[in-house]
């Protein structure tokens, strides 16, 4: 892959940060957007904009077609079986809230158990915490081991006949652990327990195949997949679409509204209340095009090369402590430095144009378990190269200088 060329497709890299070229290592937070995506959004607003699905005039027709074309594109990309399994939301967070609320209200009762892990992002914990509180259900956490992995045996041990759903991340946004979700789903299927995968970090970095994976729910953030802000996806297996009650109420999601009786549209409309993010959905089409034009397999190979190079190089630095050592790691490197707080690292790195994130990355339970309040995180996107890692490592050494270490 020609990374220089790829980078040149992202306008953000034209600018300097503090006089230095931007080294963007914060893609796990949000990825940058290629020009095709940005232009598609402008162009849509300039020539095709209208509200979707509600008017019959020419603009509305165009907008509606573009909108639904993206749904078809996502269906193909995820290898989902049915287009109505693709529901647009505002974020992965909302996708998970939707399931926790709709599934939880109907199927979770007092004394039931929700099985999750210590790795989870708050977005895959707080929604379950809410429904747990409300219904008197218990949340069980499969523990993380010293490598930052959650062993499948630990999950097996925690499954009981009260387990109503398993909610689990695909890739940890802290340790980078790629979870053996296929095995977990197979295990759960034996026991007839539905599984939600928080695919926020998985979707941008792995090849996805919903029919092969056979999970019940898969949550995606489009803004981490080179797509627009403010858009998420929920894949929900067909068997749940009629089963689950709607989530939000409003325009579009109804079939018939009487004062005493309301009936609902079928999926996906049922779950898409109110005016949708048309421009964002239309723009996301180009994000998938971008990924497909490179080939997800090529992206994975390239990212893994950079990742391995990064891990090797960081390991050689005595002052750096890498968080987690999972066998399968995707795109994320969290680390700490003795005597320098991650916040200070991030600030000093920024002086060299290196953008990373510092904090608990919305994984406080995991950080508590690791016994550290915060970590510094460098995360990789398709536009990153080994040279970026070199700049990162030089900047890390500069931290030591600033702190006289």
């Amino acid at each position, binding site marked *: 892959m020609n990374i220089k060329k790829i980078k040149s497709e992202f306008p953000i890299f034209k600018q300097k940060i503090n006089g230095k070229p931007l080294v963007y290592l914060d893609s796990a937070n949000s990825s940058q957007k290629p020009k095709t995506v940005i232009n598609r959004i402008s162009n849509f607003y300039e020539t095709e904009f209208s509200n979707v699905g509600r*008017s*019959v005039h020419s603009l509305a*027709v165009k907008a509606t077609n573009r909108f639904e074309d993206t749904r078809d594109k996502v269906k193909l990309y995820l290898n989902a079986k049915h287009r109505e399994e693709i529901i647009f939301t505002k974020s992965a967070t909302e996708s998970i809230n939707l399931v926790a609320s709709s599934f939880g209200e109907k199927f979770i009762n007092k004394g039931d158990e929700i099985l999750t892990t210590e790795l989870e992002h708050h977005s895959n914990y707080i929604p379950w915490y809410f429904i747990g509180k409300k219904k008197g259900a218990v949340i069980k956490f499969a523990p993380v081991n010293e490598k930052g992995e959650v062993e499948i045996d630990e999950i097996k041990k925690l499954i009981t006949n009260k387990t109503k759903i398993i909610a689990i991340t695909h890739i940890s946004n802290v340790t980078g652990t790629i979870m053996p979700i296929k095995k977990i789903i197979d295990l759960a299927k034996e026991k007839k327990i539905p599984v939600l995968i928080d695919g926020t970090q998985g979707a941008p970095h792995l090849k996805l195949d919903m029919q092969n994976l056979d999970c019940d729910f898969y949550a995606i953030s489009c803004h981490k997949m080179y797509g627009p802000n403010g858009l998420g996806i929920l894949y929900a297996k067909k068997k749940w679409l009629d089963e689950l009650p709607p989530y939000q109420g409003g325009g579009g999601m109804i*079939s*018939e509204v009487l004062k005493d009786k309301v009936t609902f549209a079928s999926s996906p409309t049922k779950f898409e209340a109110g005016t949708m993010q048309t421009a964002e959905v239309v723009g996301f089409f180009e994000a998938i095009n971008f990924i497909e034009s490179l080939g997800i397999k090529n992206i994975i190979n390239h990212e893994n090369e950079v990742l391995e190079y990064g891990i090797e190089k960081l390991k050689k630095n005595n002052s750096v402590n890498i968080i987690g050592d999972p066998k399968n790691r995707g795109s994320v490197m969290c680390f700490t430095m003795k005597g320098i707080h991650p916040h200070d690292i991030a600030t000093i790195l920024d002086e060299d144009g290196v953008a990373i994130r510092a904090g608990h990355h919305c994984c406080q339970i995991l950080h508590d378990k690791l016994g550290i309040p915060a970590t510094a995180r460098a995360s990789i996107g398709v536009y990153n190269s080994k040279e970026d890692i070199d700049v990162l490592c030089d900047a890390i050494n500069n931290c030591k200088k600033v702190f006289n270490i």
Partner: protein
Amino acid sequence: MELKELYQEIILDHAKNPRNKGKCENYNHDAKAHNPLCGDKVHIYINLDNNKNIKGLSFEGEGCAISLASASILTDILKGKDLSFTKKIIEDFLNMLKTKSKITLNSLSEDQVTTINSLSGVQEFPMRIKCATMAWHTLLSAIENKNT
């Protein structure tokens, strides 16, 4: 002008004077449908005899010219036909609107072919295709829904 294609004489005539409106006698199959975005409604009634012939066929409904004409034309053409022929016609009709082809089934009279084809103007108006197809989809459901 495409509008003329859409609102042909035949269509307007069927829309203003829909044939077979109401519940047909001794109907034993029925189904209804509803487009929540525009409020179009249709209810199809079939009297299917033991030989799988459509003895009676009628509809109730409200909606735009296209949806009324479509339902009216459907009942007019399929009344008296047998089930397998009916299914074939439905399939052909839905295909016509999808692939912009015309219908040329031999067992229809020339008049009937002209009538059905009058609905092909809808091809150029994607937002109206549902108006034209709703009755036909509902007929399919009705065939499957054995009534009381």
